């Protein structure tokens, strides 16, 4: 079999891929892999510089919002159900039209806060606006990070009724100012740890990791629903190792592999057939039926506006 280039992020992601995922996949499928570590946007920059005809990857894992953009440019193709049997048991909300890409890993995003520094813990997203305790102590992401875009679109939905109510969302988020903007999860974690912020929009796996290190933080699944970093897996139209890519995707979607990720990595299993042990329920608060509570957005509508939104965020949120 051909060597398959597999991409992932750094830090704990890379560690998990190297020590667990890749050896297991090798054992299961007999495919040699090369791990490419980076950021979603660098992968895409590479892809676009290379062009549709000669992609450097066969399969690409990126956040769904980014994937949808590249998909529109014709880089990906639908995944044949026959080649990837596990596709069928993925939660329907995580599957795309024509199975052009599938969201295989989900890290849900809610609210995290410092138990010791917050008197009234938040229960819902709206508490961010209403609890005066939080004024100036809120941590959000910079607009370059997917989470910030998710938060914006959700605000539009909550306050304006639909994801299209971007203006309203801006108006509302500006009411949260001043808030601290982190460029990535690690920074936000540090700020929480150090008490520079006491409450943050942050993904749960990050909070769990902090708890394991003994930081007094707690997570809240907001009543309105949760956001999520959805890792979208896409097979390239002109993939140099297409068969191996299918095998890899099928492996990722396997119920047991999803359980393994949840255990080591605190992501929410995306396969309906996965069973989460009860002792994990506290660390992975959103799974099974609650997967429905993940906000979903139409990225095709957002993508053309990304530049304008970024621009506006740059100007207004400071």
């Amino acid at each position: 079999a051909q060597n398959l280039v597999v991409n992932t992020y750094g830090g704990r992601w890379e560690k998990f891929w190297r020590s667990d995922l890749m050896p297991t996949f090798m054992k299961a499928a007999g495919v040699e892999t090369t791990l490419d570590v980076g950021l979603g946007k660098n992968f895409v920059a590479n892809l676009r510089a290379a062009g549709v005809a000669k992609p450097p990857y066969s399969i690409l894992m990126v956040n769904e919002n980014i994937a949808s953009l590249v998909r529109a440019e014709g880089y990906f193709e639908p995944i044949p159900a026959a080649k990837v049997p596990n596709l069928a048991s993925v939660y329907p909300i995580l599957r795309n039209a024509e199975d052009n890409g599938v969201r295989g890993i989900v890290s849900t995003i809610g609210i995290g806060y410092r138990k010791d520094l917050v008197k009234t813990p938040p229960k819902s997203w709206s508490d961010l606006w209403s609890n005066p305790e939080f004024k100036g102590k809120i941590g959000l992401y910079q607009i370059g990070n997917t989470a910030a875009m998710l938060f914006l679109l959700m605000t539009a939905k909550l306050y304006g009724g639909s994801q299209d109510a971007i203006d309203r969302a801006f108006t509302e988020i500006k009411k949260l100012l001043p808030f601290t903007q982190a460029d990535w999860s690690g920074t936000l974690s540090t700020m929480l740890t150090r008490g520079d912020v006491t409450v943050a929009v942050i993904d749960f796996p990050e909070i769990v990791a902090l708890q394991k290190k003994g930081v007094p933080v707690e997570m809240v699944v907001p009543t309105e629903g949760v956001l999520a970093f959805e890792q979208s897996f896409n097979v390239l139209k002109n993939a140099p190792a297409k068969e191996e890519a299918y095998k890899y995707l099928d492996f990722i979607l396997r119920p047991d592999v999803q359980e393994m990720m949840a255990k080591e990595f605190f992501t929410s299993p995306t396969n309906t057939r996965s069973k989460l042990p009860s002792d994990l329920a506290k660390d992975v608060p959103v799974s099974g039926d609650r997967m429905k509570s993940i906000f979903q957005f139409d990225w095709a509508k957002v993508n053309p506006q990304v530049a304008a939104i970024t621009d506006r965020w740059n100007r207004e949120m400071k």
Partner: protein
Amino acid sequence: MRTKRKPLATRVADAVGLAYVGAVYVFLLLPIAVIVLMSLNAGEFLTFPPQGISLRWFGALFANEAFMRAIGTSLQVAAIATVCSTVIGVAGALYVVRHATRLREGLRMLLMLPLMLPEILTAIALLFFLYASGVGTRTMFGLLVGHVLVTLPYVFTNVASSLYNQDGSLEQAARSLGASPWRAFVRVTLPLIKPGIITGALFAFVISFDLFNMSLLLKGIGMTTLPLQLFDYLRWDFDPTAAAVSTVSIVVTLVAVVWVDRTVGLRSLRFG
């Protein structure tokens, strides 16, 4: 003017000056001291002051395959890039100083150009160019080219200035003693401009070892350099391993710098 009889006003002025200079040195050292102390932290977090002293994070580092690989890659890239930019830069400086006539200033500007252009834009330009020409980023080639481009001006200025300072009649003396042009270069010019070359190479190495934007875009698929690895690592994990890596790389570079000091003396460091 340095004796027993220095007037009081002079001594006071000297003391004030010395205090100012000392403060700048403290400023230079501050973040580095913080990082070294953090790497010795016994606790779980990258915090300051450290919660006890231990070497556990160095253990974690040496056990971390990804970091060790990244360090290896960075050393390899920096070494190759340094060799390339040194060879190209020395030859270029020789031409510009000793042979160029009318084009001298133009050529000098050209060789300094990579320093004048924003690194990130150069990186993107190169990325497109590499794919357009079919080279791509499957290999280290593009990354190396980028590093050589960025480090070339550092070698060039250092070597050029030591060539300017070197007396041209030495080469002629060698010729009149029967040395061919090549042997005159190897036996006389080269040893004499060695400090310039080593200084330039030192800069090239240190700069390449820490190059971020260029590496971010041009790194070969499946590889990573230390600054990238650190950046990616800190994105997700904020434990003192990152500080430990930095401490190790400070120590490694320090050894290199001390070696340079022993061979050519840091006092020969010049720039521009």
